[in-house]
């Protein structure tokens, strides 16, 4: 029973990791960049719930108003197009991203 649960857990982590890896890391290779995004979201939204909601809203419907990047950065580089993932997969990917890069992980 314990083995079965462990296997399911590892398998699910692998599947979710794939969602995040396939759909996010394909473009955002730089870990520091991902950490900075999280830092910016954290500075503006503070809590897990708010951060996840903000990322979800932006990726589903990216606008300059919803972006946490500076105005000149957006003006120069624009912002990414709408995510192709369905809501469930997108949320799973955000969950993995938050879990890996949340600020609490780095405070000692």
């Amino acid at each position, binding site marked *: 029973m314990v083995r079965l649960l462990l296997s399911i857990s590892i398998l699910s982590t692998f599947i979710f990791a794939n969602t995040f890896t396939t759909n996010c890391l394909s473009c955002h290779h730089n870990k*520091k960049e991902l*950490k*900075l995004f999280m*830092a910016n979201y*954290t*500075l*503006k*939204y*503070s*809590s*897990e*719930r*708010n951060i996840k909601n903000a990322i979800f809203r932006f990726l589903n419907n990216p606008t300059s108003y919803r972006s946490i990047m500076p105005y000149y950065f957006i003006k120069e580089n624009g912002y990414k197009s709408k995510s192709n993932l369905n809501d469930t997969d997108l949320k799973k990917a955000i969950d993995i991203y938050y879990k890996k890069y949340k*600020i*609490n992980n*780095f*405070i*000692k």
Partner: protein
Amino acid sequence: MWFKLPKNKSTQKTILNIIFIYLSTTILLVITLSFLYITNQKEQIFTLHQEQSKLQANYIIEQLEILHDNIENEIAIYPKLDGVESAIYDIDKHLIYSTFKDKIDILDKQYLSTNNFTYFIYKVEPYYLGSAYLVIKKETTQEIKLKSQKIMLIVFFIILFIIFTSLIIVKLLIKPLSDNLELLDRFIQDTTHELNTPISAILNNIEMLDTQQLDNKNLKKINRIKIGATTIATIYDDLSFLLLNNKAKSNNKEINITNVLNQRIDYFQIIAKSKKIDFIIKNSVNIFLYIDLVKIERLIDNLISNSIKYSHPNSKIIITLNHGLLSIEDFGIGMSRDEISNIFTRYQRFNTVVGGFGIGYSIIYNIIKEYNISLSIDSIKNQGTKVTLKW
């Protein structure tokens, strides 16, 4: 003894009441003042902690900002100050990092107080490292405990001092009263000693007189002298009982109360006749009681003598003796409720017209108390009084 209360019960009661009122009011005042002082000290400690924690919070927020700006670094070392415990919470009030283990509920307040600690809460914006609230923990108990102990010690000594001064004040206040009572007691004691011989001489000589040879006019005069001498003899007996017998050990034995009662009624006949008062006696035969003879005589004498004293002329006194009961009922001036409640006070008299020292009920009280005899008084003003003893 340095401080001695007077023997008189009502004086004792008054003095104790004064001491109680004086002590309770001053102690209440001292306690109130110390309470206010401690409250003030608590507020001062709180203000001090608030100011300290504000400075510490500002420093920590500055450090959080620096940490956030350098977030690319592998780890962010949370700013820790010596002797300062703090924690940061996100906007949803979830803990991000804490240097203490207590679980607290962050409410939209400026501080949170528990028994031992105060938690000062500061809002942080922007949310460096996600922190929306910064909490600084301060221990308050120890400081307040120390101050309270100090105050309590001072209050204890103040109360001791107040008790000491109250005793001095009472001693000064009661001194004239005690002196007067002592003087009165000494006067009665001296007078009593001097009364014995002349009273005995008068009564004995009257008894020895050959009344056959006297005409009616002189017989009446001799009777009046006998009444007067008997009255003085009764007073003498009461006084010497109060001064001597009352303090002596009781010589208890089975006494035939019926006989004693009849003898005492005979003794008072001459005084009763002078007021044209008839005794109506309802006696059961031979009632016995385990008591001191002198004391039962004093008890009966005082009850009969009072009933004669306060009876209207041309009236009657009903005396009932039964198993465990003796009642004496007169039809005289009666007593009010206040008078009844004060009846056992020494030197209390309700009518200054009739003679006496007002010590009768004081004697009665001492005797019934010693033998656990209950006494009830039924009296109606201007109708009469019924005194009942039960044992």
